[in-house]
């Protein structure tokens, strides 16, 4: 039996609905229909009255979740696409994210964001928005890259007393498969060594983990051994694990599907150089998508986002520096 990344997300929601009466789901088309991607398939039937279709009102959807959380519930909100979450941006960053700091009242909501590029998605169904949310204080931002993490981190997210922005990568939904659901998991906030190596460190997350791993395999044919760190959560960011890896390899490449200006890649590099400058044998590099909207046509999209090929090139350049 194998399970996809998407099914893992469904299973995690099924489990928390079963185990915790405080959990309910709220989002567009998530009821009988099971969601635009089927991440809530059959859940409305299995848990009557606890999986609710919402109007096309992203701002109200998040506001509703916050109010319910204040009253002791554990809402999970689904945005149909991460790109539409900006219509609920205010409630996420100003209502949910400030509540605990201002009032000592915890705000345990989970906002699920199907994010990232897929072929033909275009400018409004492909965005990577993790940096927007990570920039604001008061939010935990998760970016699971594996089936196992999609499952266990979503369960963690519901247990956390603070608002969690759960970025689930659409590109992985159907493609990525695992043998089964995990029994145990790393703690939240801990990055994972996805591949051990000695010549350079690639720090990455989400769909780019798989491009990076493929790149590492290809480069291995040249005799280079790349270490790959999967961040898992981009806020908090596990600087220690990154520094530990850079201490071993002396070289750093950060790969992110987001736009270049000021995202995860910049943040990782700024931390590594501030705290681990002397560990570096070469200037740390980053590889991002291009600084334009995400194009619709597959040809353009493939050139816009980092691919395994682009990672190979960037890593080769880094190794030669």
């Amino acid at each position, binding site marked *: 039996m194998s399970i996809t990344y998407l099914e893992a997300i469904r299973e995690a929601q099924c489990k928390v609905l079963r185990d915790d009466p405080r959990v309910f789901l709220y989002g567009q088309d998530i009821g009988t229909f099971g969601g635009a991607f089927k991440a809530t398939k059959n859940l409305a039937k299995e848990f009557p009255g606890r999986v609710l279709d919402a109007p096309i009102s992203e701002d*109200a959807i998040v506001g509703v979740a916050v109010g319910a959380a204040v009253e002791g*519930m554990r809402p999970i909100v689904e945005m149909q696409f991460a790109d539409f979450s900006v219509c609920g941006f205010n409630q996420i960053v100003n209502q949910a994210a400030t509540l605990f700091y201002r009032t000592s009242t915890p705000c345990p909501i989970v906002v699920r964001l199907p994010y990232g590029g897929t072929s033909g998605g275009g400018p409004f169904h492909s965005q990577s928005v993790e940096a927007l949310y990570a920039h604001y204080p008061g939010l935990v931002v998760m970016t699971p890259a594996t089936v196992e993490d999609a499952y266990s981190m979503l369960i963690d997210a519901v247990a956390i007393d603070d608002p969690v922005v759960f970025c689930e990568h659409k590109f992985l939904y159907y493609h990525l498969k695992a043998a089964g659901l995990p029994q145990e998991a790393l703690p939240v906030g801990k990055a994972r060594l996805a591949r051990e190596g000695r010549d350079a460190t690639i720090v990455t997350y989400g769909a780019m983990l798989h491009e990076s791993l493929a790149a590492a395999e290809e480069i291995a044919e040249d005799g280079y051994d790349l270490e790959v760190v999967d961040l898992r959560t981009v806020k908090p*960011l596990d600087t220690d694990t990154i520094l530990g890896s850079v201490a071993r390899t002396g070289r750093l490449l950060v790969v992110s599907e987001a736009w270049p200006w000021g995202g995860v890649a910049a943040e990782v590099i700024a931390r590594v150089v501030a705290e681990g400058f002397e560990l570096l044998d070469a200037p740390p590099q980053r590889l991002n998508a291009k600084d334009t909207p995400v194009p619709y046509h597959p040809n353009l999209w493939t050139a816009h986002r980092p691919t395994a090929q682009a990672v190979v090139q960037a890593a080769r350049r880094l190794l030669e520096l």
Partner: protein
Amino acid sequence: MSSSSSSANLAMRVSKELYLKTFRIMLQARVLEEKLASLYRGGMIKGGVFLGRGQEALSAALGVHLRPGDIYAPLIRDQAGRMAFGDTALDTFRTYLGSQLGSMRGRDGNIHRGRPSEGYYAMISHLGAMIPVVVGALMARRFRGETGVVGATCIGDGGTSTGAFHEGLNAAAVEKVPLVLVISNNQYAYSTPNHRQFACESLADKAAGYGVAVHKVDGVDLEDCLAGLGKAVDAARQGGGPQLVIGEILRLVGHGEHDDFSYLNQALKNEPFAKDCLAAAEAKLAEMGWASAEECLAWRKEYMAEYDALAARVQREPAPDPAEESWDALSETALVDGKQNS
């Protein structure tokens, strides 16, 4: 719409007890806000001061109809409603004066105070944003099987233009939650008059578009406010779904104490909604023989003395100390960025 009572009409639609109780809260709010204004002029308050002068009847009438266990998310000009719901003068001063002992501990200020875990929500500045939050809170109560609970929040004429107002009220209507949403049409949003804010004849015309019940009240007549809000709160409590209440009033002060209100169209002062609701209620008390002008003055003096003393006491309280702050925005300190491994 029930028009305000004429002096000939001595048969009141609300009890003496309720009227008097609410009047005294209005008076407390008025006196407290006068003290805040004077502290502001004296440079004792660092942020802004936004007063509810002229809106006490509408605001307090909502607050007195709520019960412990209800949810209340007041807005800018709801000092009276807050006091009716149980907020104290002490915490008001603490928050405005930035005492460490205030409910917001100096982290947030003035009108943003609240105690969400007690059903008394702390507004964010972004107008309209509290509406869906109250809707969600009411959905939570329903999930838990609680009935007879009401959630109330307020918005200004200007706030009705926000997307948040629309989405929040629509969500309430779809979910049929017991929301009471009070629109205080005080004719201005900061300096912006109604005709630059909306083009409907009456804000009450919005109700049908959401499929919610609507009540118009004379916002400067305490009796009408009490009767109208009573009906609305009861209807919500009894399962009648969202209730929209519209009160026409005039803001009797500037937007904030920094604002001289020079843009006020003087012609509005002659409108019935320009009356001072507190003075009108006081006159009514005398007319009904429920309280004399002397009694009212005595109450006023009592509150003044009380608030002077409270303010003096709070000013001697410690200010928040940055060194004692955790500087964490998360309740799960283990997940604070940069601290998760320490």
